[in-house]
């Protein structure tokens, strides 16, 4: 009664009679089509950055027969004062965010994990995670409620102090690095703490027991048991963030300052620049040049970060 299926039967199954690999390929077709349209065709579109294209006169024609100008678009781009400004803003903001995220999300995860009352700590985490689910349009409303010149909560609060003048928030660049950092932490700290919270939960309780027996108090345990065990994760996540340092959070920099012109010196980043060049100025070649600059530097940074992660701990690397 022993039935041994032949190799042929194993490979060819189903009514269609297609080999298993063929059936697999058929299954993958929808995603392949979407990937080609969304990702791979646009990669060829990068040629726009090396051409002189006029907006409006048939772009596919333009791309096929466009005038090749080599690196001219990049020369134009790098010659503008914007190029330095947006690079500086993108890198500095992301650098600040990486440090703030690390401190606040590890700190938050530790407090939530150690709090005596489970239900209370669960509730706190639920609340602090909530801003993550609001879109940046909603966040811009919230910030507006605080910063409106005449009616805003902050200026009304300032009024109650004698001698304090109301601030025209949407006209004054000086405050925005702090405002944007605050909004960033507010929106993401709950989310960023999730992975650290999971890491804290997975620490073997016996380690703490051993430390207690050795006479280590809570503070010493945090320093000599918890922290060293979190460090690998902190390093890996930070490196991966460094790999993304050339990409900025478009919503934060576009929606929250309400696209206010006077704030551009401190709110214009690579992504907002590309968007404005494309949509407001219709300067496709320039927008594409800035985009290609971002894509290539970003790619090199991701590869570099991944190389470092691999050297540090292979199991965490992306590839």
């Amino acid at each position, binding site marked *: 009664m022993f039935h041994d299926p032949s190799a042929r039967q194993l490979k060819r199954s189903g009514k269609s009679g297609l080999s298993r690999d063929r059936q697999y390929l058929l299954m993958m077709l929808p995603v392949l089509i979407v990937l080609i349209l969304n990702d791979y065709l*646009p990669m060829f579109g990068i040629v726009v950055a090396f051409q002189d294209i006029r907006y409006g006169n048939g772009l596919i024609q333009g791309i096929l027969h466009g005038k090749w100008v080599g690196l001219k678009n990049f020369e134009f781009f790098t010659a503008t004062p914007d190029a330095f400004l947006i690079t500086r803003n993108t890198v500095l903001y992301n650098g600040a965010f990486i440090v703030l995220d690390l401190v606040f999300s590890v700190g938050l995860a530790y407090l939530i994990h150690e709090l005596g009352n489970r239900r209370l700590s669960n509730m706190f985490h639920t609340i602090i995670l909530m801003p993550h689910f609001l879109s940046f349009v909603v966040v811009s409303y919230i910030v507006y409620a605080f910063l409106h010149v005449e009616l805003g909560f902050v200026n009304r609060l300032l009024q109650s102090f004698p001698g304090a003048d109301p601030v025209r928030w949407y006209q004054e660049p000086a405050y925005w690095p702090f405002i944007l950092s605050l909004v960033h932490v507010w929106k993401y700290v709950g989310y960023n703490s999730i992975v650290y919270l999971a890491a804290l939960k997975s620490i073997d309780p016996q380690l703490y027991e051993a430390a207690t027996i050795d006479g280590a108090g809570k503070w010493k345990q945090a320093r000599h048991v918890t922290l060293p065990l979190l460090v690998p994760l902190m390093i890996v996540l930070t490196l991966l963030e460094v790999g993304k340092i050339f990409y900025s959070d478009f919503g934060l920099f576009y929606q929250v300052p309400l696209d206010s012109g006077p704030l551009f010196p401190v709110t214009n980043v690579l992504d907002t620049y590309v968007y404005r060049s494309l949509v407001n100025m219709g300067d496709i070649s320039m927008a594409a040049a800035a985009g290609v600059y971002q894509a290539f530097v970003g790619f090199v940074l991701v590869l570099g970060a991944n190389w470092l992660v691999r050297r540090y701990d292979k199991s965490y690397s992306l590839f």
Partner: protein
Amino acid sequence: MTKAIRSSRGGNALSPAVNAAATVLLALGSLLCLFPLALVLAVSFTPERVIALNGYSILPAALSLEAYAFLFAEPLRIVRAYGITIFTTVTGTAVGLLFISLYAYPLSRRDFRYRRFFTFLVFFTMLFNGGLVPRYLVYTQLLHVKNTLLALILPLLVNGYFLLIMRSFLSTTLPEEALESARIDGAGEFRIFFSIVLPLAKPALASIGLFYTLRYWNDWFLSLIYITNDRIVNLQYLMYRVQLHIEELQNASMQNMSLQAIREMADIPSENVRMAMAIVGIGPVILAYPFFRRYFVQGLTLGSIKG
């Protein structure tokens, strides 16, 4: 596991003073997260004349429903925006889940000869992309989807990160014997996919479906780029436009007046309408939040499985 940790904590908890300090700190953090929403909510229920007098206040001197009455006096725009958001969210999530599962299943099979190549094909899109401009050109000049619902669905349909989570999940949970016996019974791969793989993938489908839903629901960026037609304004984009121009919502007779004239009529609500618009937009997400939080956190830990 959690039980063991909890019981071990008995003799090793924070001292009462430190615990109290930690509680206060976390309570302050929670307050910082709740207060802004409470402010928006309070302003939306404040009469316009009180706002003009006192500014935005968390404790309004008077309450009224005038902003909501104004907002829903002509509900067509809002209902329409909701309709578009719900349609793109449901369609995008359902089709997206189906597509990535269909792709992830072969990738999770060790006997699939080309799986390394097809995994790389997805992975590469996470590392490098042409950027906004080339994709804009493909969408507008090649596919001609500007001002269509497709422009709001297609860009978010396949997400490499979600796809790789699904692949990892399938490669660790699918029982090889069940698949093999189905094959011996003559079932094709599609049959196996729909009758065995999808039902077993439910936990991953729930979490990834939630990720998709939030992406589609909260998206305004695609509208900003691809939508110029007033008839295809989704909820987020409507909120964005109202934020820029409150007169978006005012009816035709008022649109003939200058903005200045409207502003001078203090009893015509505008600032509270703005905030009411925000509340109408946030509402469903906040109300559903306590129910989906668990799946969200669960989904993030699914992602840490290495395939």
